[in-house]
């Protein structure tokens, strides 16, 4: 059997080939497994690969196809961020504290992928509990940017982006709390989509910040992102924050996509000093192409942008401090008991040695902003400023259909360059966190490479909550213009 070259194979074209009978899902899956074995040593995207499970899933998909089933994801292997519960598989969140845990249930997104015939083929690396923007905060391994191996793939869904960009997966699922899908997609040159808050179920997805987390795809192109979103979107009785709204046909929304007549807003606060000039230039060039193609481009203002990082690091860490309290060594995961054999020592040692420094730092900050005497000055104040950030977008979207801006102030940075300055690292999230605070949908698509080092740069498109069809159409049109 000739190995299939998956290095630039999209989900849609693989599905066409499966439908034509050019290859089977077992052959496709075997090729993915072989490619991981051959090439992932140099990248480090995967934490675990479930070869037996994947091949069994592929055989089942082939059987379903023979029985007459036909679905867009039938027989397609998908890489999963290590944050999703997949029944019978470990789920470590790249943390030592979850060592030994085996998921007894499927996350809703996993169950939906399975129902569509997709195959969870392996678990990819991430920043521990999704806290970070470089995947360097994984407790287990370094993941390299496939485009520039001395650089980070971004994060926290760095493994997801590296797997797709490195030709080790056709597509993957990640999560985005403050940019964790869009920023690594930008760094690795993929398409990364963060759905509106409430569009996709969070059940079975280890929580970082409950009011901000969303699951979304990282893929090779906009069409693949639409196919994956279609499979995972929609109300879930297991997640009361996942809203009961109709799920439009996202792939159909792409047909004949054009920016002609589209009202595009360009927020002046996103084009300020401190952003890499090459990033700025590539994003500006993309906006110019949109204007040339008939979009009505106007400058807008999102005046509370400068407060978004402060709001985000208060809200996200506060929620995380409670969400991560359950990791205590009592019911699952790592347990360590001190010489006195006390429950107190069990809690203290399991957590102190189970969590890495970035997670501890955020839990400390989040515990503090909720603590007696500081709640009003920090947490409650942040919630009010969150209202202002949300209102900025409401006002903007009264005038424009979509906002175009950079994803991150820089292209992928070098490994080990930010780990020692947490505040500087946090500030790099400035362009991605507002969408999470306001519950918007957003996507990062490739918009070129830097002239000097050829590093990928992403263009961010933001749309109002539940305007995924507009978001995808705009992204598809821009993808065409930027080719």
């Amino acid at each position, binding site marked *: 059997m000739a190995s299939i070259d998956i290095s630039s194979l999209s989900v849609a074209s693989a599905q066409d080939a499966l439908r034509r009978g050019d290859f089977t899902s077992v052959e496709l899956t075997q090729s993915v497994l072989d490619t991981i074995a051959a090439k992932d040593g140099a990248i480090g995207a995967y934490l675990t690969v479930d070869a037996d499970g994947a091949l069994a899933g592929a055989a089942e998909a082939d059987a379903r196809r023979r029985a007459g089933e036909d679905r867009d994801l039938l027989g397609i292997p998908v890489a999963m961020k290590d944050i999703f519960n997949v029944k019978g598989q470990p789920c470590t969140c790249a943390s030592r504290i979850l060592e030994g845990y085996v998921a*007894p249930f499927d996350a809703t997104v996993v169950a939906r992928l399975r129902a569509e015939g997709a195959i969870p083929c392996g678990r990819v690396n991430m920043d521990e509990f999704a806290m970070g923007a470089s995947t360097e905060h994984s407790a287990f391994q370094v993941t390299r940017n496939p485009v520039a191996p001395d650089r980070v793939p971004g994060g926290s869904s760095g493994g997801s982006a590296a797997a797709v960009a490195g030709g080790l997966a056709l597509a993957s699922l990640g999560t985005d709390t403050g940019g964790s899908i869009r920023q690594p997609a930008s760094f690795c040159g993929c398409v990364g989509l963060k759905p509106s808050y409430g569009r996709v179920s969070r059940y079975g997805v280890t929580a970082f910040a409950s009011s901000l987390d969303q699951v979304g795809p990282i893929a090779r192109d906009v069409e693949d992102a639409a196919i994956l979103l279609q499979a995972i979107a929609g109300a879930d009785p297991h997640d009361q924050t996942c809203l009961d709204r109709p799920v439009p046909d996202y792939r159909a929304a792409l047909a004949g996509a054009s920016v002609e007549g589209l009202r595009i807003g360009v927020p002046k606060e996103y084009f300020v000093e401190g952003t890499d000039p090459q990033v700025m230039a590539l994003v500006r060039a993309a906006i110019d192409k949109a204007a040339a193609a008939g979009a009505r481009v106007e400058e807008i203002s999102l005046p509370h942008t400068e407060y978004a990082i402060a709001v985000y690091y208060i809200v996200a860490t506060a929620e995380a401090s409670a969400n991560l309290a359950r990791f205590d060594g009592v*019911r699952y*995961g790592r347990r360590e008991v001190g010489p006195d054999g006390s429950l107190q020592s069990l809690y203290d040692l399991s*957590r102190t040695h189970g969590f890495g420094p970035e997670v501890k730092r955020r839990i400390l900050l989040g515990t503090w902003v909720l603590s007696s005497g500081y709640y009003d000055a920090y947490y409650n*104040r942040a919630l009010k400023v969150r*209202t202002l950030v949300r209102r900025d977008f409401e006002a903007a979207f009264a005038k424009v259909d979509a906002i175009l801006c950079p994803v991150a102030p820089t292209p992928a940075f070098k490994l080990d360059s930010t780990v020692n300055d947490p*505040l500087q690292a946090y500030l790099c999230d400035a362009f991605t966190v507002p969408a999470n605070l306001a519950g918007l949908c957003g996507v990062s698509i490739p918009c070129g490479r830097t002239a000097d080092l050829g590093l990928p740069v992403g263009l961010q498109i933001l749309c109002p909550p539940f305007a995924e069809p507009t978001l995808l159409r705009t992204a598809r049109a821009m993808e065409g213009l930027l080719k």
Partner: protein
Amino acid sequence: MSDSSLDVAHVCALAHFDLSPEEMARFQRELGPIVAYVNKLSELDLTGIEPTQYGQPVANVLREDVVEPSLDRETVLRNAPDASETEFRMPRIVE
């Protein structure tokens, strides 16, 4: 809102971290500038602004009172670091 107001030792006790003095000092050093940075929110006049605590402004999603299957006990206890046949086990708690 002074940035020295975050007392790492106190917060560690609440979060159940048992840090060495060196680690404690490191977190105190790193968190200082972050607290100073987030203090910028105090610039804003927030009179009359309602807090946003949810991901979307929606209410009233409730579940009907219908019994669903539970996990079987073997599965429940399988992940436990220590368990008897029927219960999760931990060091004896002194009341």
